[in-house]
């Protein structure tokens, strides 16, 4: 089992109020799955994704990655885990605006201590993989939304992670561009057997995965295989 969560709770303190974002979530994700987490806004789906990606720690419950309990990890080990095992894709791309696509993609490799030459080679390869071979030295401000999200995917891919975590990756894109992004995820999932976990509120985008987890009020409401799966390649064809 790649990931295992049991009875995860996450509480936020917001002024005098305590908000229970996750109320006892248990789930496990296996290598090679393409999981879509779906729910309304405020349902706790993003919180769940952040905890999966170790961007945030649960208040209660046990979270194991390949059998190791995350709560026992030091800050440094968590940083290494984020660097080596996860690739993040955000709704707003989160690229550094003033540096080139290539340099953005290089960032995760920096924290592995790769040499400039190695970083460069691998970043260019990752950009080629997402179809941006002619945009390598462009700055994010010179790129369209779809292209920017591709750069972000290249950045997530460059370190050969076990798991891609995407928070509303198509949320800021039109449907055709969104479909293209989904196509990239599906291709990576098929060809490289990459595990993908995406959060979305769009039922159609959710259907690109192999498994659907529905969340409501911080609890899992449904967990099922997707039978009527959508393939971006077919739609775009």
């Amino acid at each position: 089992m790649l990931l295992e969560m049991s009875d995860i709770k996450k509480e936020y303190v917001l002024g005098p109020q305590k908000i229970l974002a996750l109320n006892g979530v248990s789930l496990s994700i296996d290598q090679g799955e393409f999981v879509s987490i779906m729910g309304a806004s405020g349902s706790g789906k993003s919180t769940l994704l952040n905890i999966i990606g170790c961007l945030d720690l649960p208040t209660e419950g046990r979270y194991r990655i390949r059998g190791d309990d995350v709560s026992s990890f030091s800050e440094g080990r968590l940083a290494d885990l984020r660097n080596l095992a996860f690739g993040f894709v955000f709704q707003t791309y989160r690229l550094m605006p003033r540096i080139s696509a290539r340099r953005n993609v290089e960032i995760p490799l920096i924290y592995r201590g790769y040499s400039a030459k190695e970083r460069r080679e691998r970043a260019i390869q990752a950009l080629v993989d997402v179809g941006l071979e002619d945009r390598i030295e462009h700055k994010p401000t010179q790129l369209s939304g779809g292209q920017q999200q591709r750069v972000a995917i290249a950045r997530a891919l460059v370190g050969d992670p076990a798991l891609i975590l995407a928070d509303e990756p198509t949320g800021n894109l039109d449907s055709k561009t969104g479909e293209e992004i989904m196509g990239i995820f599906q291709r990576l999932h098929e060809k490289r057997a990459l595990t993908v976990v995406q959060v979305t509120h769009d039922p159609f985008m959710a259907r690109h995965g192999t498994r659907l987890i529905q969340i409501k009020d911080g609890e899992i409401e449904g967990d099922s295989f997707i039978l009527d799966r959508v393939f971006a390649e077919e739609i775009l064809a």
Partner: protein
Amino acid sequence: MNGNPLGRLLNRLLFGIEAAFWGVSANKLRSAITILGVAIGVAAVVSLVAIGEGARLSIVRQFESLGTNLIKIESHHSSIRLTVADAEELTERVPSIDAAMPVVKADAQVKWRRDVTEAEIMGVTEEFPYIREHEVYSGRFFSHLHVEERIRVAVLGYKVATDIFGDRDPVGQRIYIGGEGFTVIGVMRPKGLGMADDVDSKILIPVTSAQRLTKSYRVNEIWVKANDRNSVDLAVVHISRIYRNKFNIGENIIPTESDMYRYDYYGYYETGNVSMKSSTHSDNLLTVTSMNELVKEADEANRVMTLMLGAIAGVSLLVGGLGIMNIMLVSVTERTGEIGLRKALGAKQGDLMYQFLVEAVILTGLGVILGLIVGNGVAELIHRYGIETVVTLRASYVAVTVALSVGVLFGVYPAYLASGMSPVEALRRE
């Protein structure tokens, strides 16, 4: 993956520097404002302290232009008569002194050809150039023989010489002082404006000739030069004792330090067309004043001024520091999102601290360099407009230290706080 951990560390360190340069160049306006803030703080301190220090130095120099280790003996009462013989007596009796010279001061009409002016006359001896440490510019000074034989020769202050003679060479010319003919034999080297006891605008004649002009054996002052710095105090005590016994005036003769300030206030009494100066002030009958003490006192007074300017500079440094702090806080806080992103991509707290440290060092370092350049430039400019300035290493050192530490502290501290947050929290702050 690189196998060598040292190589990996080196790559990370190199990247920290690279990332810092990205950070600096990525937001040029913000960087420029930071550098400017630091520079203004440093420049203000450096130039203000330079002005204060310059003022102090110029006053000290003024007093020193009187001659070092100088002691003035001055009578303030008609019953206390100082004479030429007193000076000779002192030279014999006080071993801690080098030379003693009687001084007669008077105002007189000076006439050359048809031009008539008023000038201050000083009757002195051949020791004047030595005691006042003031050389002759052209011609020569009068000799012992001139004094002894009451020869009517005159040495002109530089300003008097140019006032009367213009471009002509005054040496060899004949002038009339108080109706008596004098031959000009020399001109003193200019001392410059604002120097104490402005010799530039005085005419120096042998004291004996001056006595004849004033029609009095009385001399106004006796100037004494002590052997060296250490014998000044001893000489003052010794001289005071001699006069106390001589005039039987007990404690009324006190070596003073501050009477010098009152030298400007003279009253006059007329004797024909020459008016002899007499001091109108002082509770003391006679004063024995060490100029070294005055220099020290003036120095002290000016140290207060330097301190005040230093305080102003300190405030400007504080303001500059607050500016640095502010811009650093804002710029780092504004980048919390970036810190969150970097954490999500695997940066450790140390990586981020390092990056921001290098960035702060670059920004404040550039600011400090600019500030030093501007500060020195301002001091130089003010100097060129005639106000003495002295750039001190100490002020620069303090300014640089404060600016660097404030810049680095407030560049790194918010980064430390931000990089200690969970990545989610930092990412949310965008």
